[in-house]
């Protein structure tokens, strides 16, 4: 870990040493530049002139250009707010791309202004400094952002400042370091340029799921490459990228990879495995993980078009270093500076550039060259989790599996097997509807629930910087839960009988007196009434019978017992009833559209009615059930003899209807007469409504005319539908009315027994025949093709006319900008534009 010099040394001469601990000079630590303030409290360095020197107490290379001091930071770095890079304030900010920061350590925020002109850094309130990167996902490509103090420097004109900004901070022309030093001293002042707010972040965007990140965390195996000073077990790149756009795996990816190794220092010199390795790297066995920035070739078809780097200005140690952080120091293998015309070795910026290898680092005056960067990071669980979070902040798939894991290997070899996305080794950064990530992630099967699981391209992200953020989504529950019905405590006794037992019971009722005599021994004729009353509580044994029902099923029955009426034991055997309710399930049919899921499959053209046994029919909206499974749960209530049908679209109840399933067998004449009267009233009511509906329908036809109806099907069907409403309502009332006396059966029960005992969806499809003779009864493919050719199929598509393939295209509201003749000789005149507009509205044949 780095050792910081106590602030008491500030302003005092400090000895500095080279890598071999040879004192090379002394200088005063600069105690008034911005690096003295949080988060840049780093005092373990010294620098004089063109040479870099290292203090012996420091573990990290860090230097500061003292002879040409940078412009001082005017104020402490305030970590409670976000410092954002933004464009000239006259131009609105396109979007905030992300923040990369850790509390107390700083870093920056990135704002996309969608061009590469100048940039300004300013505080951006009230956005808080975020702990994790929040990467906005967009299609916008930018080449980076940073800022220069010169923007606000009164010494220069604004235009000049802007020029400096552009030249100094754009990564493609970067002579900068992240601490605001510009490699080329200003020609006017000779001073290096500084960045007031110390931000520099380069970024680029990429399509959702365009890339796949694999973080292979390996642990140090204890051996090193003696020359390079790097662990031997990092010789194989473990970073893989998967382009879903091209279904192609790439062995390397310009993002990140973490290796568990032991490196305390940073080597930014040379590509690993090639010449120019970091001989200065000193293994430190006290640490066992290092993050490595590896950059490999990018496929030509990759959407990653621009350089990218993330940068952190604070600390190289594990605590403050973003995994894709920048570089803090530079040194060649022989302890001397690398190519740097200004000799400044300080903050380095890791840039990923289009090329063939290496992570390019940039610093003051350094030319573009391929570099591999090493950053120290302890292999603690916390750090590894942070790695995951940082990766998750990209909103992409990544894995923390090792290369030897089966899941990962399978991913590698079966890259286009999307089923592997749910592998337990796979993680997916959570992206909210605004396109932001916060470092949280899902894993394994949990990925399926992620917002961005199915996104194939960036355009599938719902994020649109132009639109306001979408409202929070509701939490939907698409399953209706049915409860089990327990036993119902009653004051009565219920027996399950066979038909023969019912007949015997009927006889028994008329033979009670004799039976009592036979079984009671000697009859006391003077007290016969009392004896009977004692048996039945009333003077009529039939009063003990509450109901007698028949059900179209084997009623679940319990133990056998004798039937008792009051206290009177008939000695006829029956079974006690076992259950209060019974469930029947009708299911298994997915309702498919008939006409290609077109408007013809839906109301008012197609009507659907569902018949449920014992409950009648109910009209369903095809839109509620097409493409879904239609299920019906019929619940039989043995207490009342009624039943309830629950109609479900998939598992969600969308309609209910009731009916009588039991045939109630009248046991007295009074009961039978009452029920008959009520049924007559109900049927008469339905008849009246039916007549009214028919009259209304006829009136509509005469008013609109047959031709009009035929050519305006919507109107016609709607009219018919309106006419039927009253009738439908009457039918509904009839089929849904409660039985006036629950113990006695209604006609619907008897009728229900007589017809279908299955649920049946009755569908009324429209016919294709027109009101002309000689036409086929239905549309056929040939007719439809002709119709499409002459009239065109109705649609609503935003796009170019040419994108519609061949055939007739009719458009509206065309954008007629730039209409020129085919040879582009002459633009269209106003009259021609009118004609073009009319032609497009009339239709064009491609």
């Amino acid at each position: 870990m780095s050792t910081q010099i106590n602030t008491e040394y500030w302003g005092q001469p400090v000895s500095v040493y080279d890598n071999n601990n040879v004192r090379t000079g002394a200088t005063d630590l600069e105690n008034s530049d911005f690096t003295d303030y949080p988060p840049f409290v780093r005092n373990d360095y010294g620098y004089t002139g063109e040479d870099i020197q290292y203090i012996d107490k420091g573990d990290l290379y860090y230097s500061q250009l003292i002879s040409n001091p940078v412009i001082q930071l005017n104020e402490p770095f305030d970590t409670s707010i976000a410092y954002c890079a933004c464009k000239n304030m006259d131009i609105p900010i396109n979007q905030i791309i992300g923040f990369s920061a850790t509390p107390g350590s700083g870093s920056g925020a990135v704002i996309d202004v969608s061009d590469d002109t100048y940039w300004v850094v300013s505080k951006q309130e009230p956005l808080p400094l975020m702990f994790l990167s929040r990467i906005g996902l967009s299609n916008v490509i930018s080449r980076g952002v940073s800022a220069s103090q010169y923007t606000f420097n009164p010494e220069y004109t604004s235009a000049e400042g802007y020029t400096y900004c552009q030249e100094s901070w754009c990564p493609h022309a970067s002579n900068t370091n992240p601490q605001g030093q510009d490699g080329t001293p200003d020609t006017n002042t000779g001073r290096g340029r500084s960045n007031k707010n110390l931000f520099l972040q380069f970024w680029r965007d990429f399509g959702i799921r365009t890339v796949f990140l694999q973080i292979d965390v390996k642990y140090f195996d204890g051996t090193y490459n003696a020359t390079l000073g790097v662990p031997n077990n990092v010789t194989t790149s473990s970073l893989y990228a998967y382009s879903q756009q091209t279904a192609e795996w790439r062995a390397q990816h310009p993002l990140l990879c973490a290796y568990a190794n032991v490196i305390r220092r940073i080597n930014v010199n040379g590509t690993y495995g090639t010449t120019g390795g970091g001989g200065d790297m000193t293994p430190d066995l006290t640490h066992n993980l290092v993050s490595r920035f590896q950059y490999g070739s990018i496929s030509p078809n990759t959407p990653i078009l621009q350089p990218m780097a993330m940068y952190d200005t604070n600390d190289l140690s594990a605590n403050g270093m973003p995994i894709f952080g920048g570089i803090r120091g530079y040194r060649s293998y022989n302890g001397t500076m690398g190519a740097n015309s200004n000799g400044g070795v300080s903050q380095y910026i890791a840039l990923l550039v289009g090329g063939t290898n290496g992570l390019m680092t940039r610093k003051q005056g350094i030319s573009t060259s391929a570099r591999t960067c090493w950053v120290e990071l302890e292999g603690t669980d916390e750090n590894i989790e942070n790695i995951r979070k940082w990766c998750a902040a990209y909103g992409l798939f990544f894995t923390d599996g090792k290369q030897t894991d089966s899941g990962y290997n399978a991913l590698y070899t079966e890259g286009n097997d999307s089923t592997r996305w749910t592998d337990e080794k796979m993680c997916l950064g959570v992206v909210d509807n605004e396109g932001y990530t916060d470092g949280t992630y899902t894993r394994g099967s949990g990925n399926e629930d992620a917002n961005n699981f199915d996104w194939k391209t960036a355009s599938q992200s719902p994020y649109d910087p132009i639109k306001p953020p979408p409202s929070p989504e509701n939490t939907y529950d698409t399953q209706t839960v049915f409860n089990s019905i327990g036993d119902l405590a009653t004051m009565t006794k219920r027996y399950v009988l066979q038909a023969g037992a019912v007949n015997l019971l009927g006889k028994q009722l008329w033979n009670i007196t004799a039976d009592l005599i036979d079984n009671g021994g000697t009859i006391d004729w003077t007290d016969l009434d009392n004896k009977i009353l004692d048996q039945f509580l009333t003077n009529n044994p039939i009063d003990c019978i509450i109901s007698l029902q028949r059900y179209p099923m084997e009623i679940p029955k319990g133990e056998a017992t004798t039937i008792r009426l009051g206290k009177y034991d008939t000695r006829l055997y029956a079974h006690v009833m076992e259950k209060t309710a019974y469930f029947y399930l009708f299911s298994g049919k997915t309702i498919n559209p008939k006409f290609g899921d077109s408007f013809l499959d839906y109301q008012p053209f197609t009507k659907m009615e569902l018949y449920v046994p014992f409950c009648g029919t109910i009209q369903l909206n095809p839109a509620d059930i097409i493409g879904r499974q239609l299920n019906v749960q019929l619940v039989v209530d043995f207490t009342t003899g009624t039943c309830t049908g629950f109609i479900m679209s998939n598992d969600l109840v969308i309609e209910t209807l009731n009916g009588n399933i039991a045939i109630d067998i009248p046991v007295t004449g009074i009961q039978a007469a009452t029920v008959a009267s009520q049924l007559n009233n109900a049927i008469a009511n339905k008849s009246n409504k039916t007549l009214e509906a028919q009259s209304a329908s006829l009136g509509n036809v005469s008013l609109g005319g047959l031709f009009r109806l035929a050519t305006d099907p919507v109107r016609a069907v709607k009219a018919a539908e309106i006419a039927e409403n009253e009738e439908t309502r009457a039918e509904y009332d009839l089929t849904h009315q409660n039985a006036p006396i629950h113990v006695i059966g209604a006609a619907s029960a008897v009728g229900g027994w007589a017809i279908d005992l299955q649920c049946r969806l009755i569908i009324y499809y429209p016919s294709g025949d027109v009101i002309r003779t000689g036409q086929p009864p239905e549309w056929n493919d040939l007719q439809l093709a002709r119709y499409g050719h002459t009239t065109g199929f109705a649609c609503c598509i935003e796009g170019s006319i040419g994108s519609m393939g061949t055939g007739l295209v009719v458009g509206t509201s065309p954008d007629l900008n730039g209409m020129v003749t085919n040879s582009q000789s002459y633009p269209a005149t106003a009259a021609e534009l009118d004609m073009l507009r009319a032609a497009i509205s009339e239709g064009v044949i491609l």
Partner: protein
Amino acid sequence: MTVTLYKSAKDNRALDKISDAAVVAAAVPIQNTDKINKLRPVFELAMNAAYMQANYLYCDALDRYYYITDFDINTAQRIELNCIIDVRQSFSAAIRATECTIIRAEAIAQPTKIIDSKLPVNPTSKIVTSIVLPETSKSFDTNAEYSYLLTVVGGEPSA
């Protein structure tokens, strides 16, 4: 200024009317002595009986394609071709690139969810059919043996 005469059999709505049209005469110089309107020009050509087969032409100077709506043969042995501009062919490339809301298209090949008021639908003619949802749990049995339920007062109350 010349015109190329075509014999086109394409529908007026077609963007491409010339790729398979027969060329009646190419680069025929016009002999107009009066002004020419760009939208409804009259081109005077030296009389040639073959020209009467043409129904379409291209004028190079105006860079426009025209329908030949009619022709006159004047006493000066010239044929006067009365024309009207065809913006579809003249701007066909630009039309293809034009962004608009497409409300009808042949290439879709079937009705969509957009209600099509032009598609003939007979409101009185319906195809009535049904789909049966089978029982998947228990079955109804109208001849079940133990199918009677007697509810009485007396004895031990039960479920």
